[in-house]
């Protein structure tokens, strides 16, 4: 079984999913494909794990969903809401700040090495 990358779980899925859905409406499988292709497979995770995150974002009002029948199967399409867009900006800024901080530490470490 595919293990979940623990680093991927600390608030990152929320940011990644909001960013992807800010471009267009998608369903779970599509989101998973975009994550894998655009991260060049660096983000390793069990694909089923995106659904709890999607549900959580929907409950918070950051996403909305609609159901559609496709080949006899139920499919839920998600799209970002206005509240979700604000959340995306906040999370992106936070991520920027953290990654800059971490990079500074790493560069400093390298220069001392």
């Amino acid at each position, binding site marked *: 079984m595919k293990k979940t990358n623990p680093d991927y779980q600390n608030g990152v899925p929320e940011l990644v999913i909001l960013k992807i859905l800010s471009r267009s409406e998608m369903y779970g499988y599509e989101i998973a494909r975009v994550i894998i292709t655009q991260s060049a497979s660096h983000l390793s995770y069990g694909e089923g*794990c995106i659904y709890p995150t999607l*549900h959580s974002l929907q409950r918070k009002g950051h996403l909305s969903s609609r159901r559609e029948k496709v080949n006899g199967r139920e499919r839920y399409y998600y799209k970002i809401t206005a509240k979700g867009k604000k959340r995306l900006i906040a999370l992106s800024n936070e991520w920027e700040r953290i990654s800059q901080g971490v990079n500074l530490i790493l560069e400093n470490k390298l220069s001392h090495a």
Partner: protein
Amino acid sequence: MHKYFKELRTLLIRNYVPLSTIRKTIAELRDHAEELIQSYKNEGHPREIAENLAIEKLGEKEIIVERLIAENRNSHFAGRHPIFNFLILPFALMTLIPPIIMVLSLFISLGLILSGKPISPIVLGFTGIEYFCIYGLFLLITIRVCFLILNNFRGIRWVLYSISIMALNGLFFYWKTSLVLPSDTESGSGQYGIFNYGYYLIINKFYSIGPIPADFSPNFSPNLYMGMTPFIIFIIFALWYQLQARKMLETD
């Protein structure tokens, strides 16, 4: 349906995750798996292998279950604050209702005094409406707490602990007798509630309540029906959930 989804669904039902969440998640995961199977088949894999690869790609079901439970809990105040839900709320129910009833009763007593009836200002006359309010309040809070406990299920130990607090509340707050003074009850009739003695001592400091019965002692006057109520309500909720879950399993 593949064994993976059946097991996943069983795990979710066992954890009392809302059925609407289970339905939606299973539908999404099955759709996701079918898409994966199709892509593996397009790569030239036979159906059986494609299925296994797709299931592997979805990830460990235990992790998905864990995430769904966490997500469900985090979406409710009671789920985010289990100590409040399982400890403080039932305890508050236990400790807050008697003072409310006491105040209510004092108003009624005052009404009786003003109407000219010969009654001590603290002796409490209970009416049908008062019982209705008390039991109604108790029932409403108990139903709400039982619902929260089931919806944020954290194992049978937590359930028993939380429900027992409410059951003890129902069992021992035999509202009428707990507030009637010893001088106004028949000695040895068992009509002294658990808190009579404490009330009696406090009241006696400020107000003479008459001769103390020779056999005065704080007796318990358990109200078995009220004590059983929280268990019955919770069992009804749990059975209802299981019944609906069974219906869901049959339709798939």
